[in-house]
């Protein structure tokens, strides 16, 4: 009788241990405040935050006052993506920033982006091959830089990411420029907001 109880207890403990040992994984909405934030490294929400601020600045300073000009009347202005320099210690895909801005600008109904004219070659080579020479040249180009600055005071570590963007017209004049800085502090490799 005693042995039977002991066996049952052992089996129950084993089952409980097996149940608790499994990996705990959950899906998180990308726009939620539950995303992992690290001091060292640009997190996915940092790109969304910078892109959101840049798009709002473009709308506030250029689009909403009606200063954005299109070379073809009645059509949205055409944008080409120029060089976005990554001056951080990380290898990052700058499209994490630029694509978000492109999508947001397209949704304004005031801007379209060329997929055949871009710095470093066409984004869509097939269109370039099948479509022949472009019928329309861009009205503006978007260029920029992402810079990283680190500081440390005692146990506190600080990393700043500076996002700089410029919109130039075809005369080479920057008609819009902005800079957004995201600063993160922490005492351990990983911190929350």
């Amino acid at each position, binding site marked *: 009788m005693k042995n039977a109880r002991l066996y049952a207890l052992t089996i129950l403990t084993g089952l409980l241990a097996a149940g608790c040992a499994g990996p705990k994984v959950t899906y998180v909405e*990308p*726009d*939620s*405040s*539950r*995303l*992992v*934030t690290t001091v060292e490294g640009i997190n996915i*929400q940092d790109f*969304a*935050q910078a*892109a*959101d601020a840049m*798009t*709002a600045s473009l*709308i*506030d300073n250029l*689009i*909403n*006052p*009606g200063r954005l000009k299109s070379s073809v009347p009645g059509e949205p202005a055409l944008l080409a993506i120029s060089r976005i320099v990554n001056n951080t210690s990380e290898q990052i895909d700058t499209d994490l920033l630029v*694509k*978000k*801005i492109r*999508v*947001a600008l397209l*949704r*304004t*109904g*005031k801007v379209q982006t060329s997929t055949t004219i871009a710095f470093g070659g066409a984004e869509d080579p097939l269109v370039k091959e099948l479509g022949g020479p472009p019928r329309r040249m861009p009205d503006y180009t978007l260029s920029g830089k992402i810079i990283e600055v680190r500081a440390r005071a005692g146990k506190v570590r600080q990393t700043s990411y500076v996002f700089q963007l410029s919109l130039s017209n075809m005369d080479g004049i920057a008609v819009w420029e902005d800079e957004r800085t995201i600063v993160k502090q922490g005492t351990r490799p990983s*911190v*929350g*907001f």
Partner: protein
Amino acid sequence: MLMKTALPLCLTAVLCLAAGCRSTRVNTVEPAQPVANKQMISDQRVLLDQSLNKAVSVVGVNAATGPEGFLKIQVEVENRTRSRKLFTYRIEWFDENGMLIELPTANARPRSLEGGERAMITATAPTPKAKDFRIKFLEPVR
């Protein structure tokens, strides 16, 4: 004997706590008669977290639409506590049919306010189709 040792210990502990939790309140100055003419709008609030409502209390909301039809909003918030508070906020935009406008730039923005500080949260609608908005405030979770 016990009282003799316990009292200095208690005093030291209180002093240490006071030093660690020192308040960071904000002093401000502004014109007595502001020139700006704010277009304040009436708002509807759902308050489920009273401590958060003290840390980030909405003073007022004003809105204006630009020449190209983009709605711009400005929410004045105030930290009604004595210490620095962290929070995040998220803005949702809706079209004239009340449908949510989804964007890849949607994000929960972190923000902090010193004790007693008032600040402005500004946002511009992503498209002229956006006619309404909703702002959600949350406590930091990680």
